[in-house]
């Protein structure tokens, strides 16, 4: 990769030449434009290429369900914890499913300590909306005693390493973790909820979630007014892209969410292209999940 970029930059400025990395620092956008115009990306990927992705279930035993997801340099861990809460007055038999994404200063220098950044909030909300509006889980399944007690599922995503495309990674981890959730069957008695402390959990003493569907996403960044599509952008690419198209699909190929923000207006050809690529990508992801 280094070699290509040097030649590119040299070609750019015959007068004086400097290393690819210097060129990238000085003119990040120009640096990228050179690559993009040749249909490749500095990390050697093609424009529509996704980074290697791995998924591991049940990685945290203190959580009822958990998953670790890696997409290139981005690593997230989702842990789902089931605790007991009082239901809302207007929905006495519904539990809670609360997703939150934490972008801590540990995972990238671009995040400051303190309350969640706008980005973290936006991603959390996006996942929250997908779970709610594509009806992933029937919240009445989480009822323990109507009007008295329900399960609250805290699906917290902790980003260990940030290198772009957090939405795809976070959603993938949340869905995998939810599919991994096992909750001990509760008994309700005068406001006290008890569960058995049995060592081995089976369908006798515990239950799993019955998920209506598994929405997974593919996100594309829009580079420059040429609206070049970069699949699964890394942090450096995100920094110089003006817009984003994100497609979320379930296993039946239904669209659960589709968003296009920033950059110039995008043709329907472009949108169709994204949806098509997203189909193949999410199918891959499903087989990755199954394979482990």
């Amino acid at each position, binding site marked *: 990769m280094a070699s290509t970029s040097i030649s590119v930059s040299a070609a750019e400025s015959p007068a004086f030449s400097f290393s690819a990395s210097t060129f990238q620092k000085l003119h990040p956008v120009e640096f990228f434009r050179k690559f993009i115009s040749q249909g490749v990306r500095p990390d050697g990927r093609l424009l529509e290429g996704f980074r290697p992705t791995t998924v591991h279930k049940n990685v945290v035993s*203190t959580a009822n369900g958990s998953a670790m997801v890696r997409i290139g340099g981005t690593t997230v861990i989702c842990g789902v914890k089931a605790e007991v*809460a009082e239901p809302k007055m207007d929905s006495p038999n519904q539990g809670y499913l609360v997703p939150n994404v934490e972008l801590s200063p540990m995972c990238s*220098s671009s995040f400051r300590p303190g309350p969640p950044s706008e980005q973290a909030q936006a991603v959390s909300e996006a996942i929250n909306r997908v779970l709610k509006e594509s009806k992933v889980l029937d919240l009445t399944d989480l009822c323990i005693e109507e009007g008295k007690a329900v399960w609250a599922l805290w699906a917290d995503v902790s980003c260990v390493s940030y290198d772009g495309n957090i939405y795809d990674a976070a959603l993938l981890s949340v869905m995998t973790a939810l599919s991994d959730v096992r909750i001990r069957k509760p008994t309700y008695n005068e406001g006290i909820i*008890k569960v*058995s402390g049995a060592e081995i959990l089976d369908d006798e003493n515990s239950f799993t979630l019955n998920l209506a569907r598994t929405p997974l996403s593919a996100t594309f960044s829009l580079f420059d007014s040429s609206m070049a599509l970069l699949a699964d952008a890394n942090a450096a690419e995100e920094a110089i892209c003006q817009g984003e198209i994100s497609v979320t699909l379930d296993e039946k190929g239904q669209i659960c969410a589709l968003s296009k923000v920033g950059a110039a207006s995008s043709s329907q050809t472009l949108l169709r292209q994204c949806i098509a690529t997203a189909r193949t990508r999410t199918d891959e992801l499903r087989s990755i999940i199954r394979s482990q």
Partner: protein
Amino acid sequence: MDRKRVPGPELTVPPLVEYALDQKRWSPQEECRHDANRQPEDLRPIYLKTGLISQASGSAYIELEKTKIACGVYGPRPIKKSGYGFSGTGTLNCEFKFATFACVKRRNHIRDPQERELSMILTQALTPAVRLELLPKSAIDVYITVLECDGLSSCFAAAITAASVALAHAGIEMIDLVAACSASYVIMDRTLSSAVPPPSTTSDSAPAAVSLRPPTIIMDADLEEEKFEEGSIMVAYMPSLNEVTHVLQNGKVDRSIVSQSVEHCIEACNKIYAVMRHALVESIDEKQTR
């Protein structure tokens, strides 16, 4: 009310866990450790790897069986906040955080007093090893996230170990690495019969059990073992200089036991040191092969 996160119910509690009478559960009376094939002085196998955080100056990931900790180091970078004026030496600040799902009871997103305290201790334990005098007006930030905690003091010791490896991986000048290890005092005695299972939250206050037999020093205790501990000790130590940077002891035990356990910890630290070196050498090799 947290306005910056997807809102959930104000209050949630873990359900009460009820154990069947006939259910067989580990307790020190069995005179073996929770993990029966571990001798009192045995540590859990350590998995230690550098460089999993792509954007960080240096990083390390450590695993002691269930315990999992990630650490990222950023810097040295210029101190953001003005008003501090000129500082001749750099500052090292550590932030220690449990992931919400890392412990038996769900942790809050906002740092609690315990996490603040541990952050402070972490700074104290690491600072002696870092040559801050070479880094005027700059700061090094060490961020630690515990992904799963199986035994508090052992987890904390592991955090120190991981942090010092991450610092080294960031290429920050240090006079030595800091290895840390913990030990718990547990009375392994039949006389302490009908051991009622203490509430699952017991991690700090040890059950006040009176006994004639002195407690056994068990190294690198896990959560189950901690539940029964009389007290515990954590030692942070610079192996090649043979200097201790921090000792954290709690609970009431005989002086002799303390000094003895310090010995044990230092021994253990030397074992851990080997693992740390190996991890760092590996990372250098990787750099070269790239």
